[in-house]
């Protein structure tokens, strides 16, 4: 009997379960205790597989506690990639690159194992120095002096207004406009370039992780209080950019728990991403600074500082090629001296879609099925397809209750055909009715459909680090909520489609 032709072909990624968002580049961080280990599992054969079971077998860090779970699929078409994930507690995880093994088995085949690395970081905040730090095996990045576009006055919370004791309202989202990044390599290194973080992403991704974690911590604290994140992580940024005269919008507060959390989480990520856009995907300031300042023979680099400031020339709309004007300085400290390099330039968001098209039925009779089909077109007119994206939709009932549904291009369930670029999700009203009844709502009226999609880092394991670093995942290429510099209105949440339920 041959081995089941199923494999996890790319690095598994982290999903934060309260907000449903993927963490930057899929990296796990032990400041957030509850994360899901998600992956796309691919049928690598030329034929359909039946009665497929999939489970997570083991994780290489005993500090990561996974809840066992077996998934079954009646059929997985040839070439299809299905999304699966497992709840895990990362509270005691160590920063590193532990292995994770998955086992799949289909009718007529023996079981097959896929082993992949995940990346785990550790973010902390030091109140006395007002500095965030993120620890990984290759060193420590310190983030300080974060300046932001001031958020609109007022507060955000999910569900009922918090009492201020157990839950504190969130004041974000915070759009960064500058920061200081200090990298302390471990160990000090000779030569021009040091090891990349996790031998994969640029250093700026670590800074992005910090900002996203700060946003998520603020949102979770406002929604459910403490207990699921490292105490001491600060979810607020107080230093506003003195050169900025505008203010940032805020998601509408009080939205019902699940959907509201997701909208706020997406807004938090989108706002934070301005840092990553300003600091370029092709090569970030640390790499370029290293390139421009080769140290003398025998010298060891002991620290690298980047001070960056940027102006947003457009509103930071997810999926749009918004521009930033950035100036940054790089300073390398070695055992023999100090080297400096400065750059001023314009950078543009490259995580973009040319068009997001969402198709839904006009009218559905209860208790029928609501569905949505979405296509995401790149600027070169090709479609994102299959495991390129982690996508989901919010179905908002007429009286406000949200339902989160995954959008997949795997040719199973609601989706007609695998990897054709059409991501499909659906909601059986029969299953939704009890939830609606619990919330004292009915299904009748206009349902709104909001679509979100993050790109997935699909770099093949084994790719040289400086090549792998140029591909970063976790950016929203499509989002129904956007960040606008208008403090007078909630952040625009625009439904891409609507369905009338009769």
């Amino acid at each position: 009997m041959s081995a089941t032709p199923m494999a996890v072909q790319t690095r598994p990624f982290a999903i934060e379960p309260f907000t449903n968002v993927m963490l930057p580049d899929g990296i796990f961080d032990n400041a957030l205790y509850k994360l899901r280990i998600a992956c796309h599992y691919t049928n690598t054969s030329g034929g359909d597989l039946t009665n497929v079971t999939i489970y997570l077998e083991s994780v290489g860090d005993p500090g990561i506690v996974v809840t066992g779970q077996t998934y079954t699929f009646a059929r997985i078409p040839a070439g299809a990639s299905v999304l699966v994930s497992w709840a895990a507690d990362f509270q005691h995880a160590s920063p590193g690159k532990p292995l994770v093994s998955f086992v799949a088995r289909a009718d007529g085949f023996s079981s097959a194992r896929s082993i992949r690395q995940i990346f785990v970081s550790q973010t902390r905040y030091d109140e006395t120095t007002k500095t965030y730090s993120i620890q990984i095996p290759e060193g420590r990045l310190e983030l300080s002096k974060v300046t932001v576009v001031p958020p609109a006055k007022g507060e955000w919370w999910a569900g009922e207004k918090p009492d201020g004791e157990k839950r504190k309202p969130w004041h974000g989202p915070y759009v960064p406009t500058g920061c200081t990044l200090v990298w302390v390599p471990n160990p000090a290194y000779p030569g021009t370039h040091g090891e990349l973080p996790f031998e994969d992403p640029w250093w700026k991704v670590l800074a992005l992780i910090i900002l996203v974690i700060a946003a998520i911590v603020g949102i979770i604290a406002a929604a459910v209080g403490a207990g699921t994140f490292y105490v001491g992580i600060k979810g607020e940024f107080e230093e506003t950019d003195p050169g900025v005269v505008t203010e940032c919008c805020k998601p509408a507060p009080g939205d019902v728990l699940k959907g509201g959390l997701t909208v706020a989480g997406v807004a938090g990520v989108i706002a934070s991403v301005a840092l990553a856009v300003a600091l370029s995907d092709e090569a970030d300031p640390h790499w370029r600074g290293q390139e421009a300042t080769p140290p003398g023979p025998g010298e060891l680099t002991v620290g690298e500082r980047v001070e960056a400031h940027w102006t947003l020339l457009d509103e930071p709309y997810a999926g749009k090629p918004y521009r930033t004007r950035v100036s940054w300085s790089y300073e390398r400290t070695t055992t023999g001296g100090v080297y400096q390099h400065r750059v001023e330039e314009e950078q543009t968001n490259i995580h973009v879609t040319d068009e997001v098209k969402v198709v839904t039925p006009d009218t559905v009779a209860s208790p029928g099925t609501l569905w949505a089909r979405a296509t995401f077109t790149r600027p070169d007119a090709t479609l994102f397809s299959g495991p390129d994206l982690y996508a989901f939709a919010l179905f908002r009932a007429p009286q406000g209750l949200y339902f989160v549904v995954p959008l997949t291009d795997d040719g199973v369930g609601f989706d007609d055909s695998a990897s054709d670029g059409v991501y499909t999700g659906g909601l059986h009203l029969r299953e939704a009715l009890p939830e609606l009844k619990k919330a004292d709502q009915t299904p009748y009226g206009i349902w709104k459909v909001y679509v979100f999609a993050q790109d997935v880092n699909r770099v093949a394991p084994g790719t040289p680090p400086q090549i792998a670093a140029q591909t970063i995942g976790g950016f929203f290429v499509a989002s129904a909520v956007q960040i606008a510099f208008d403090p007078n209105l909630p952040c625009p949440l625009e439904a891409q489609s609507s369905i009338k339920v009769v």
Partner: protein
Amino acid sequence: MTDHLENMPVSRRDLIRISGGTTLAAVTLGSLGVPAAAGASPTPASRPAADGVGSASASPAARTRLRSTGADLLIRDGSPHWWLSPDIWAVPGTDPNGTPGTPAAGDVAYVWARVRNTGREDAVGVQLRFYWGNPSVQMFYSTLNPIGTAFADVAAGDTQEVLCLVPWNVVTVNDGHECLVVVASLPDDPPLPDAVDPVGHPNVAQRNLTLASAGKSDFKLTLTVTAGRREPKRVRISALVGGELPKETLPTLGLRDHRPVEKPLVEVGFSTKPITDPNDGVGGPELELEVPAGRSVPVHLTVRGGRDLAGGEYQLVEVVESDGKQTLGGISFAVVGPEGVR
């Protein structure tokens, strides 16, 4: 109950439950009270994995299977001694898919186990716990060191190899000659006694088997003899020289085509104090010990004479702890000569 047993195939696990001690009997009554279908059936759950209200974390077509509560799981014991389980092995190095072998002190290694479902229902969500322990004869969970855990689904009648991905950092004490224990369990399994008892528990297995080089110099190892927390014991430590390992076990030691040597070529001795001068001999051929409750005492093992073993040969040495006629535990060594492993 008798009729019930006569009309149904009885698994090894059932027999052990029925014939077990007080604790096990009590658990058996509880288990028998649960219909098999309810107790262990992994019937696919009807609800979708991602249930619409709160999660985008799995394909909508994914269904979840409920975790089994109990199953007849078997990790085979060794032959002729239970501590030679062929279903546990280590892979030295950083590649868990590498070649099995004996890790050296300071190495990392990955531990694998093979679990069989001898029952009539699929077992879903089986948890395997992996431990290592210092070389000892009778082993206790309270003195073992956890390595990590892993999950496995094993269809009825099927066998699954399971990998523990937590690297086993082989400590330098005892020169890396450590013992391994693996337990496969489900939530309704009866609790295990502190003493590791693979014979009484088919879901438990032990591998106290290591490669010993006794070529140019003596092979020395400190064994630990431990008494239960609340019970002293008086035991005899002795050795059997000669015999043969199962063919499937040899590759797990890195020995492929090695031949056993039946005629004793090595000399085995025990002492309560370390022997530092080779002229002092190897110690006595056996040792009687009294171990107070909750305490451990060291026994120093010396193996000498492996220089007469040719390349491609090994001699099996089995160290046995016994209490009267009852064997409490043991540890075995495949002794190779100066040429070591070819």
